């Protein structure tokens, strides 16, 4: 959002964005659950060039104990960027930006959790940005939410994040790194989509109130698309577990001559899915 770069064009002659997208089109999105073997729940997202991992632990005993809350669990969210995730090496110590983003992501997830079910316990969410592109706090919220679901933590709804903003004079959904940096406004949003509730909302840049109204309308369409992908990846996770269970319970008698090696493979697959 600097003067010197403001004149740079962010649309081609066909009215498409520099990466070929329409104004309301999302970057390529890939979601995965159960990515990390040691965590109680985990997930991975690739959104544009963002590559982000999330691990969830808990509900578990809270340390240090004096932070325990008598009538509910403490949700802790830690957002960290890898030193190599950005253009110039990021210093390893957590920055003020990372502290603030950890906080807004926590507040984006918290309203959807039943923390009162686990008094004095902790639920910990660790988010590691491996590669950062524009909109990493939104992608982090999206991935953290399905990691919580993967950990089996009950929720009112999953939470979905994406940014909307204004670049080169036009409202655009899911800003790229460049559109974020030299655009006119950036509005990161997260919603509990089915409930029509915003749980994360920030903005910087310049928008009129009419533009903001239009931008929020646009972003809800994008949220719906991502929300459906989140649902789908979680559903597929459960189907896979069911298949693995039924496979391991199936009597192998009808094919008596199954070689040993194949049985070993099946066992390994079910261990992976845990």
């Amino acid at each position: 959002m600097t003067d010197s770069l403001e004149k740079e064009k962010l649309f081609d002659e066909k009215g498409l964005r520099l990466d070929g997208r329409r104004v309301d089109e999302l970057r390529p999105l890939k979601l995965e659950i159960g990515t990390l073997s040691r965590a109680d729940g985990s997930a991975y997202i690739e959104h544009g060039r963002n590559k982000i991992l999330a691990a969830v632990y808990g509900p578990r005993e809270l340390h240090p104990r004096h932070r325990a809350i008598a009538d509910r669990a403490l949700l802790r969210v830690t957002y960290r960027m890898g030193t190599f995730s950005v253009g110039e090496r990021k210093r390893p110590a957590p920055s003020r930006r990372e502290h603030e983003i950890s906080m807004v992501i926590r507040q984006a997830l918290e309203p959807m959790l039943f923390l009162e079910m686990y008094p004095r316990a902790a639920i910990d969410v660790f988010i590691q940005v491996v590669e950062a592109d524009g909109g990493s706090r939104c992608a982090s919220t999206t991935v953290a939410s399905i990691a919580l679901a993967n950990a089996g933590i009950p929720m009112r709804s999953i939470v979905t994040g994406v940014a909307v903003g204004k670049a080169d004079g036009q409202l655009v959904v899911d800003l790229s790194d460049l559109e974020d940096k030299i655009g006119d406004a950036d509005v990161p949003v997260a919603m509990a989509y089915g409930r029509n509730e915003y749980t994360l909302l920030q903005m910087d840049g310049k928008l009129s109130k009419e533009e903001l109204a239009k931008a929020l309308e646009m972003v809800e369409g994008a949220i719906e698309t991502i929300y459906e992908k989140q649902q789908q990846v979680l559903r597929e996770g459960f189907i896979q577990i069911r298949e693995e269970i039924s496979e391991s319970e199936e009597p192998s008698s009808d094919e008596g001559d199954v070689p040993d090696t194949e049985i070993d493979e099946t066992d390994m697959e079910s261990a992976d899915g845990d």
Partner: protein
Amino acid sequence: MDIISEIERERMNELLQAGKRIDGRGFDDLRPIKIVPNIVSKAEGSAEAWLGETRVITGMKVSIGQPFPDTPNEGVVVTSAELSPIGSPSFELGPPGEQAIELARVVDRGIRHSNFIQRTKLCIAEGTHVYLLFLDIYILADHGNLIDASHLSAVATLMTSQLPKVEVDEEGNATILEEFMPLEMEAPPIALTFAKINDSIVVDPISTEELVMSTRLSITIDGDDTICSMQKSGSGTLTRQEILDCVERACQIVKKARSVLPKR
């Protein structure tokens, strides 16, 4: 941690249902604003802001330094906030916590993304010498809504500040002169914070309202009536309609707030 009694919480909810607030204000009324500029003679800018009983001072120190490599023709504005125990029994000593970091960053963004101060005007010699402005916010009394009070004191500080003139010779040595000049600027942005308590949304919450609010939404309105920053916080949610209603209300309330800022 601050606590609120059940009886006070219930009383507040009953009042809100009836369209009233615990301190007698209407939902869109700000507490009285008072600004005392130039309270520190050794600072290049300073101001004390009162928002009701909430009291904040900001001081600005200026130095000359190098610009960031990606913005060679822009000066640098650094904002920090100090929540020391003199401001509230719940503030503790130590490095800035989450609340102080958020406060400083929200104030910073509200000013950064407005037309108020063009950072290119803080450039002395492109690529080598720019003004570095350090805005340091100290909370003296927290009676609620630190964001708006801190924003007011930071804006008033910039409005009444004087920059030392600087000469750069041919060899690139900078000399700070004894002469001063005011900062060039446009109309200032104003931050307005709303608190959602059950289904009621009120502006400029006091401490007791902050204890029961589920969600907070801060909106900064620029001098040209556009929105230049927003920040939702707290563990509650907002609907699209609630967000747009707050923006609409902020555009009305901002007119009253502008009239109390110092004249230039």
